[in-house]
């Protein structure tokens, strides 16, 4: 494989990251529309629309630094655990929170597919690798959000709920 192909390939990943950053607003608007009309995420309807927008925008606009590996895994853990704790206090069901993160990932990839064209094997390989980096990032985000949510539930939940949670988290 020639150097030119390699350059083109590595540019794919950078191009996608740049695309997400520059179009965070478009992506956020699409996602908010989907999130606030779906039955599986109806818990978000009780929040102010602007607040939902801000939060989704925050995920998209930070994605470049998370994906670039600028931040440590510990930072990701703390950031998403905190998100889980906040969602618990807002009374949003955990499955709604999980679905919201999945939708952020799905809309991102749909947007990439809509706007990008990969024409060489190397570009396709890079796109595939990038896709998996995104999937892994969201897997971690979902896992830590869930962990933060459940820990907060254990700490603050009502007594009957605590009874079960302490049975689980003994």
């Amino acid at each position, binding site marked *: 494989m020639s150097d030119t192909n390699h350059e083109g390939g590595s540019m794919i990943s950078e191009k996608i990251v740049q695309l997400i950053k520059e179009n965070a607003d478009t992506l956020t608007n699409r996602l908010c529309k989907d999130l606030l009309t779906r039955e599986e995420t109806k818990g978000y309807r009780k929040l102010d629309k602007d607040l939902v927008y801000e939060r989704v925008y925050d995920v998209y606009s930070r994605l470049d630094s998370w994906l670039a590996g600028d931040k440590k895994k510990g930072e990701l853990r703390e950031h998403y655990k905190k998100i889980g704790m906040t969602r618990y206090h807002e009374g949003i069901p955990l499955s709604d929170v999980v679905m919201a993160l999945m939708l952020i990932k799905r809309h991102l990839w749909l947007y990439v597919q809509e706007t990008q064209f990969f024409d060489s*094997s190397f570009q396709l390989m890079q796109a595939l690798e990038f*896709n998996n980096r995104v999937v892994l990032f969201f897997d971690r985000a979902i896992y830590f959000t869930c962990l933060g949510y459940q820990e907060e539930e254990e700490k603050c939940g009502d007594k009957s709920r605590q009874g079960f949670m302490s049975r*689980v988290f003994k």
Partner: protein
Amino acid sequence: MIYLKIMEVLKQDAGILSKRVVNDLLNRGITEYHKKFSEDVIYERVYDVYSTLNYWLDRARPKEEIMKHFSDLGRKRFEDGIPLHEVIMFLMLIKRHLWLYLLEKHFFESSYELLKSLEMNNRVVLFFDRAILAASMGYEDELMKYVESCKEQSLVRKFFNKKK
């Protein structure tokens, strides 16, 4: 073509893949509740997902069937006393190891295969997203039922205490 090749791998190597997942799952500090179960039980649970993946990935499979199956899985894990974040990790590791295995086997070579694998990858990711979501919903549903029954029991107790 890629789809059929992956289905063949799942048919032939579901055992190898399951062993890898069990090993990973039981050696992670973050999956301690799974350690309450024997390795054989965990193996069976992982194997069950891999060996039925071809069934679930069939485009003709209705979404509702996937949701029902994995929602029941979430309910069962609640009964087992496994925290939801471990249930989610269980499903994520199954997806992750499948991908690592395919990469290891140099599955995708030509541009066409790579393009198809990108599509296939998204199909697998979407399936696991649905499975995780359904398991979370089933788990939460069972948790709510448990909370309600605790409240009812507490009310009954209060009622009888008053009568005494």
